[in-house]
């Protein structure tokens, strides 16, 4: 025993040790309270068995502020239905409020909303998984097959898991080729129909009208705009928790090279379209911009303030060697019915109305995924007189051309691109240089979530 240590110091040491032990125990207890039941998420769901139903019981609806007026309109049209409306973030902008709360409710065994809207198109990847998934399979007697068949081709793909359809799609965000018709006419250009023509025109613009732009590669959703359209296997699920990621595939490298060329020439910006600098200095110089359907009103009209009669939409571009043109998709909300709901009838009726009703969808802010409602929506867009051409053909064509090889995953491609590729581009590297790092980043995100990456 060390007699040099005074008794008081030994006592202090003992106190410190007890304190440290206490802290570790408390932290361990705190860790036990973690609400992340990941192991459950990997197991296959059992056959759906509804809980005991209580006809006419109140249903709780969680929706974002943008969807709440629609739910209120449903309430007005159905005064006999008892509704409790809760406004939440809608899982927009990378939030995962719904998943966090559902995991807590799974722990405590109560509290699930009967209906939930999510602006995150990837949310089916967790909501339809687990022993008792949060989402109920709507195709198992809750929503008629005729209604499900009315959605655009592939629109319900982010809802399809384990042979069931676990949500209804609120809106599509199919990519088209946006262009400023007034500027194009002024410069004597015509809208391209192939990516090769697009590149040639981009090079021409850089030479003849330096400063004008034909695209941007600094948006978080650039992979969905360019690489999805190029049919790049960056996110192809081949089974439950199996994903193929091959960014060295020729269909990825062809798009990387195309963009690298135009970035080097200066006609594709490395900035994002929503940055203050871009809006101030470059918005008026956007000649063409491949991007989602919501760019029309949200970006060109509300954000860029481009006057009426200038912006037009063309069909998605095609690679000359391909049989047909494909496109990608940037967003699109989902409606879930809770498998724990005691009033599945009312809950299903509400999500069906929200996604298919002309009363709501025809005037919604974004393109309806349900085809008959989309027709009405497009007619409404024509009436606004904002666009320089009728966007109907381009939108409808693009809605049916979303390449099915790009799957929803539990990780966000946008977050990976933002944290890995955009900083590399801004440090002077090319997209082609970055493909390896990007692939590693996707793999590193996928594996801890239980994915087998090929």
């Amino acid at each position, binding site marked *: 025993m060390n007699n040099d240590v005074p008794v008081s110091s030994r006592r202090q040491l003992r106190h410190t040790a007890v304190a440290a032990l206490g802290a570790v125990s*408390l932290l361990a207890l705190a860790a036990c309270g973690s609400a992340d039941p990941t192991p459950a998420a990997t197991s296959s769901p059992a056959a759906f068995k509804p809980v005991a139903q209580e006809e006419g019981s109140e249903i709780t609806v969680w929706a974002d502020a943008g969807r709440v007026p629609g739910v209120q309109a449903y309430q007005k049209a159905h005064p006999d239905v008892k509704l409790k409306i809760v406004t939440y973030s809608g899982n927009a902008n990378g939030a995962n409020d719904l998943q966090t709360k559902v995991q*807590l409710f799974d722990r405590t065994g109560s509290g699930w909303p009967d209906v939930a809207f999510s602006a995150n198109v990837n949310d089916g990847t967790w909501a339809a998984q687990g022993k008792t998934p949060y989402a109920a399979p709507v195709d198992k007697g809750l929503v008629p097959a005729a209604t499900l068949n009315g959605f655009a081709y592939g629109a319900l793909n982010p809802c399809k898991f384990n042979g069931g359809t676990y949500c209804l799609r609120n809106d599509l965000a199919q990519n088209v080729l946006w262009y400023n018709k007034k500027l194009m006419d002024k410069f004597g250009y015509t809208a391209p129909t192939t990516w090769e023509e697009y590149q040639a025109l981009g090079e021409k613009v850089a030479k003849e009208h330096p400063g004008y732009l034909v695209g941007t590669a600094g948006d978080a959703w650039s992979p969905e705009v360019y690489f999805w359209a190029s049919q790049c296997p960056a996110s192809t699920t081949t089974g439950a928790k199996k994903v193929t990621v091959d960014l060295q595939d020729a269909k990825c490298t062809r798009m990387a090279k195309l963009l690298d060329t135009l970035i080097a020439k200066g006609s594709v910006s490395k900035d994002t379209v929503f940055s203050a600098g871009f809006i101030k200095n470059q918005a008026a110089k956007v000649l063409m911009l491949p991007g989602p359907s919501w760019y029309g009103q*949200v970006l060109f009209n509300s954000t860029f303030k481009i006057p009426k009669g200038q912006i037009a939409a063309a069909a998605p571009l095609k690679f000359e060697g391909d049989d047909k043109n494909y496109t990608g998709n940037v967003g699109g909300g989902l409606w879930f019915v809770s498998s724990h709901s005691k009033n599945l009838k009312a809950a299903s009726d509400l999500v069906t109305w929200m996604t298919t009703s002309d009363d709501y969808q025809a005037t919604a802010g974004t393109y309806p995924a349900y085809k008959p409602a989309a027709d009405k929506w497009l007619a409404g867009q024509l009436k606004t007189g904002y666009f320089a051409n009728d966007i109907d053909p381009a939108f409808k064509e693009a809605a049916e051309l979303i390449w099915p090889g790009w799957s929803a995953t539990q990780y966000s491609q946008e977050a990976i691109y933002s944290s890995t590729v955009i900083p590399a581009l801004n440090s002077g590297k090319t997209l082609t240089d970055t493909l390896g790092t990007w692939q590693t980043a996707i793999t590193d995100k996928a594996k801890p979530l239980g994915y087998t990456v090929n």
Partner: protein
Amino acid sequence: MRRTRRPRSLAARLAWLIVMGLAVLFFCVPVVWLLLATTKTDGQIVRDNPFSFGSLTAIADAWKHLYAFQEGAILTWLRNSALYTFGALAITLVTSIPAGYALALTRFIGRRTLLTVTMLVMLMPTAAMVLPLYLGMSAVHLDGTIWSVILPFSFFPFGVYLTYIYFSSNVPADLLSAARIDGCSEWQVFRLVAMPLAKPVIALVGFFNFVGNWNNFFLPFVMLPDSSQYPAQVGLNNLLAASPLFNTSSGTGNEIMRPELALATLVTIVPVLIVFLFSQRALVAGMLAGATKE
């Protein structure tokens, strides 16, 4: 011997000025920008000089849009914040001041252990406790009620520790003994002697608790399932998510843009600012208490 103060060199003064100037810029520029942002339209914020003044009409417009968001939700959030914060503050003061006093000036079995545990809990990040707290509240069927927020808010070991330090170093035990000799009961000693001396630390504990609770996001976010119960911080998160600036799926026709977000931020800061302005003298006295021994 009288020490003569050496004049500082020009270089040292210059360095001091540069460092202080940078610090002022670093902390003040964002606040100035935020204040000016409310005077401009969204287009002016993006296109005009960042430090230009817009107009007072723009502030009125921004408030009109902000107030219109979910029919005055901003006022509901502020009211909820005030309810949770002041409710918790009352419980905190009632519990932590006597607790700190007892730990500092009385002797009882387990005192040191209690003090050690208080310090340990104080050091733990509050976010780490939120999920176990949720499960606990659910077990006693308090989840989703205002008590699921007020009770954890009022658990404030830092306040107990501050009070303990204050009474240990500023109130002599002999003073309390003299009061006892004069016939005071233990309650009277605490109420009539210790409490009047403890005003600075009460203000300090109250201020820290108020600010911490007012700004807390995660606990009410986890505990409260109903948007009508949201406090300001959770409401602000909803407001951000509803703006087309952060949520492209919200479509058009939404009036929540940069000026409205800046105004909402300022409105939620105001209560903290008012409390700080009214209590700053007591705060300084409380913070300096025990700093020197004479």
